[in-house]
């Protein structure tokens, strides 16, 4: 089998546990022990091994699993020694092994959830647990039973005596008290993530400690009657220990389901909720998101303030978030979360996705702004070009044709005086044709850019437009003074296009033009009583108008139901 070394070790330990179970059960049956009692004893060891291996497999980074499995194996091994009935030496080793799991449990609880002993005080407590337990084998007759072999380590009543016994018992009590105090301290100082994991562990470990303390107090002669049911309570407490520790280890694992919710929440947008969603998924309300910026390189808060990742308390640490190999940010979070790297990894992956989305969103917004301004620039450039062409036409070709027309008229008049009617007719036709050309040229120029708009402003230009309109126009102008040139041009074209449509397509008999300037916005409305049915179809003049108005950040709305006339409303921001 091609298993990783750790998995192979775990499989080996499981096989060893099964072997120990088999051997000890066999020894117990041969030794004639009551089956019910044997089963109860072996169940505890088996449970420790199973819970330990399960915790180890799910949380390979924590020492809690291996310690728990070790406690179970030692428990089973102790039964093999005790029940082998092969003499005092083996029995004495068995006694040591019987009490060792208690120290291992204390070790596991003090180091929970990572399993590492971080302070000198905690190390002292763990070491004293081992010493007190071993001393118990020597000074207290823990394994005493009528038919058992001798405890070789036992220093009998004739030896050190009753005082030493009392001293060991008091040390045991102190050790238990220190153990409970350590757990309480873990809880009080723990971050929310740690507390979540301690929830099942704390009561179970405290109960077990309390039961153990009770037995010691009875030994010390306190008037507590050793009630039979306490043994049941102790048994339940010891059974609960591996289950509670396993549950504690798995609590962060169970939070994994929240990562799915997190991904969904982040996918639904609202970038501002990123921190809140991460705090919820990690169950760490203190979590902070740092955004990485390349230029200048560094981490920032959401509001753009620079952020120093090294400035956080002892209980907190930072994890860098990468996306496609590039740094996108970091999470500053509870150090306890390091005990569940898988959870942290998935949350970081989700956060990376969200950060990248936010970055892309910001980029799109910036590009959109670029496009909007370039669109406005294009419209402005187009207008400037039209104005230039209009002026060129007016100053150049139009002037020359006007002079030519005057010359033709003079020639016609002169020839008319002397005779030759065919030449008079020809000159008259030429003059008329030239006047038609001039009118078309003038209309073309006026359509390109009305000079009155530049010279006199929107109101004068609209009055001129109304005067020339084929449809009678009622004007109601409420935007006196000058506006920005692009705004005036856009408003002018809205009215010009609407009046042209009213005459050409809508066959209207009357139109109303209203302008109004309020709250940094110019409103232009043109209503006609024509046939309606107008729409901003692709390539239509209305579409061009919409583009022009939107390029200025405005809106153009066309209401034109068939038979109900047409209403064109433009709202244009005008500073």
């Amino acid at each position, binding site marked *: 089998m091609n298993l990783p070394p750790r998995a192979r070790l775990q499989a080996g330990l499981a096989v060893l546990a099964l072997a120990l179970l088999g051997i000890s059960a066999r020894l117990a049956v041969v030794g004639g022990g009551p089956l019910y009692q044997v089963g109860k004893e072996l169940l505890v060891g088996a449970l420790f091994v199973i819970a330990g291996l399960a915790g180890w497999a799910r949380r390979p980074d924590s020492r809690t699993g291996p310690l728990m499995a070790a406690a179970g194996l030692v428990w089973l091994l102790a039964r093999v020694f005790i029940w082998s009935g092969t003499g005092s030496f083996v029995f004495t080793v068995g006694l040591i092994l019987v009490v060792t799991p208690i120290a291992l449990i204390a070790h596991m609880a003090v180091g929970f959830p990572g399993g590492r002993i971080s302070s000198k005080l905690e190390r002292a407590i763990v070491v004293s647990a081992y010493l007190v337990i071993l001393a118990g084998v020597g000074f207290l007759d823990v394994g005493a039973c009528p038919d058992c072999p001798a405890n070789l380590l036992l220093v009998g009543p004739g030896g050190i005596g009753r005082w030493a016994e009392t001293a060991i018992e008091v040390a045991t009590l102190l050790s238990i008290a220190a153990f409970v105090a350590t757990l309480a301290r873990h809880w009080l100082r723990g971050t929310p993530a740690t507390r979540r994991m301690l929830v099942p562990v704390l009561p179970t470990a405290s109960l077990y400690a309390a039961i153990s303390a009770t037995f010691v107090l009875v030994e010390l002669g306190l008037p507590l009657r050793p009630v039979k049911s306490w043994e049941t309570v102790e048994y339940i407490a010891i059974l609960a220990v591996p289950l509670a520790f396993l549950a504690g280890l798995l609590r962060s694992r169970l939070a994994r389901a929240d990562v799915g919710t997190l991904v969904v929440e982040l996918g639904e947008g609202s970038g501002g909720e990123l921190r809140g969603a991460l705090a919820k998924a990690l169950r760490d309300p203190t979590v902070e998101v740092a955004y990485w910026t390349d230029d200048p390189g560094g981490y920032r808060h959401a509001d753009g303030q620079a952020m120093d990742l090294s400035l956080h308390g002892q209980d907190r640490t930072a994890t860098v978030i990468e996306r496609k190999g590039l740094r996108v940010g970091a999470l500053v979070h509870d150090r306890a979360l390091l005990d569940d790297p898988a959870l942290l990894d998935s949350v970081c992956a989700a956060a990376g996705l969200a950060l990248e989305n936010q970055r892309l969103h910001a980029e799109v917004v910036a590009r959109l702004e670029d496009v909007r301004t370039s669109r406005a620039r294009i419209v402005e450039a187009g207008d400037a070009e039209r104005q230039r062409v209009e002026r060129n036409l*007016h*100053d150049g070709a*139009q*002037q*020359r044709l*006007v*002079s030519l*027309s*005057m*010359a033709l*008229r*003079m020639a016609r*008049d002169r020839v008319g005086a002397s005779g030759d009617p065919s030449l008079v007719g020809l000159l008259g036709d030429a003059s008329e044709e030239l*006047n038609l050309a*001039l*009118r078309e040229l*003038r209309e073309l*120029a*006026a359509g390109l850019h*009305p*000079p*009155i708009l530049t*010279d*006199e402003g929107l109101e*004068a*230009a609209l*009055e*001129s437009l109304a*005067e*020339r309109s084929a449809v009678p126009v009622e004007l109601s102008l409420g935007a006196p003074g000058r506006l920005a040139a692009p705004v005036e041009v856009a408003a002018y074209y809205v009215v010009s296009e609407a009046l042209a449509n009213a005459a050409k397509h809508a066959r209207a008999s009357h139109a109303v033009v209203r302008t109004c300037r309020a709250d940094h916005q110019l409103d232009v409305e043109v209503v006609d009583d024509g046939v309606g049915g107008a729409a901003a179809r692709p390539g239509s003049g209305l579409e061009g108008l919409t583009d022009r108005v939107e390029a200025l950040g405005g809106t153009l709305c066309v209401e034109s139901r068939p038979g109900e006339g047409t209403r064109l409303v433009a709202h244009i921001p005008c500073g």
Partner: protein
Amino acid sequence: MPTVLIVDDHAGFRRMARRMLEEGGFRVVAEAVDGAGALAAVLEHHPELVLLDVQLPDLDGFAVAEALALDAFPPVVVLTSSRSSSEYGTRVGRSPARGFVPKADLSGPALAELFAPG
């Protein structure tokens, strides 16, 4: 013979207008190419009629007409343009000028009609 000042920045138009007006019974006493030149020429030549183009390089025709109207004995001003009067909105109507003739319709008789109505 009524005296005329022609104001236009296009030499071609001035040449043609001079011929047309002289044939129409006017005496062209001066030509000007811009608004400032027009005001100076009026002071110097005291023309009875000013044919004034609207689009000039410095002042526009409306401003020149207003300046001339302040004179104690103002000349008759007729505005002209290659554009139609409606392209100037109500400005033509508000101007102290006596009238407006599009360049395409300019003729001696048309001007004479405006200069001496009836």
